[in-house]
């Protein structure tokens, strides 16, 4: 609690006075299912990266390297769009309870 600001220290009207701050706001704990990545079936089409609504697909050297689960909300769009290799998907959704 000690790092919370007092009211006189806040920006006018609750403005957040810079861009790109969503990365600091962890929202992944809403998720009820998570994407599981199987690189063997991945053709590196990057559809998952394009379609992810919350930039939760991590790229490394232009290739899919996994998911940022602090921001992934488990919507499953990546798994839905994934064409996979020979009709076997590289992304499948798994329930969090498992």
């Amino acid at each position, binding site marked *: 609690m000690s790092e*919370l*600001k*007092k*009211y*006189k220290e*806040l920006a*006018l*009207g*609750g*403005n*957040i*006075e*810079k*861009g*790109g*701050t969503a990365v600091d706001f962890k929202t992944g704990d809403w998720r009820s299912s998570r994407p599981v990545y199987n690189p063997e079936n991945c053709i590196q089409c990057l559809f998952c990266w394009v379609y992810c609504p919350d930039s939760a697909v991590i790229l490394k050297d232009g290739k899919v390297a996994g998911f940022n689960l602090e921001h992934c909300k488990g919507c499953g769009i990546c798994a839905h769009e994934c064409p996979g290799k020979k009709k076997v998907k590289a992304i499948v959704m798994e329930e969090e309870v498992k």
Partner: protein
Amino acid sequence: MQKIILAKTGNEAMALAMKQVNPDVVAAYPITPATEIVQIFSQYVADGEVKTEFVAVESEHSAMSACIGSCAAGARTMTGTSSQGLALMYEMIYIAAGLRLPIVMADVNRALSAPINIHCDHSDSMGCRDAGWVHIFSENAQEAYDSMIQAVRIAEHKDVRLPVMVTTDGFIISHGMERIDTLPDAEVQNFIGKYDPLMHLLDVKKPFTIGAINLTDYYFEHRRAMVDAQNNSLKVIKEVGAEFGKKFDTGYGLIEKYQLDDAEVAIVALGSTCGTAKVVIDQLRAKGVKAGLLKIRVFRPFPTEEIAKALENIKTVAVLDRSDSVGGFGGPVFTEIRSALYGSAKRPQIAGFVYGLGGREIDMEQIEGLFMDLKAGKVKADSVSYLGVRE
């Protein structure tokens, strides 16, 4: 500086003030009895007399939403409404204040349904009194004109940054023709100055987020900051009113005392009723009755200290409320004033009178009768009565 004398209704006066302010955006939806304000203004737009972008929306909720968007984008923004229209804006009224957007709105006070009614009482704007807006009442069209111009300065002041609502009384002021002194366009522009939005969404070099969620951690702090802004506005309203007076001869404060300092009996009122009361007071003074009036011009922020001081030497005070807080102890003006006086060592006897709902006429005889009842000790202290209703 030569003033321009014109015959104007309250609505025409407010539309003229808006024209001379020449805001960047007006978003509005028509409603009786405020329709003319934006109708006349839209004619100014059509005739090219203002540079304003006029947004014709599909409801008042959308009107205030569009105002919030345009103000956040950095545009000087104004609107006008009344009654059910203001009620439909209610959700957005709180958002405009919470986001600290200096929108200026004309509200023509009108009763709220049901029963449906188009005439004056103050229930519409009083319903917004806790939202964080600066709330100014007008006694006549002249005050409405002058306050609309001052409102721009008050709202945009760096220590305030709150939306401002300037009200008139439906039909009584909005449709009553008066002689008013108006200012040349250039004088109005000089007075209000250039708008500095501080931060705005169209500034691509400084991206920022507006309207982010605040949960248990920060909501309270942001509302608390609004309390400071309201308190700061007490000083700013007085400074702007004094500067207006210095430049244009008619100064404004938070309250106005009329024959009050040596009064034995006094009434407190807002809006057009103050004009009627002044005439009655002049007549009573000629007969030797020491009657006086405390007019409240600014209801938010509530000028607690000034009011307590202004009333401390009066024997008996009647507070007139043109709206009722149904189920509460008296109307909003009564409860505020009674609370303001509670801490004073010297305080008058006080009684509340709810009057004029739905445009019910209050005439000189009624006000005179009230003064005479106060003088004769016939008014029961700490009571609330309904003046002019058939009981």
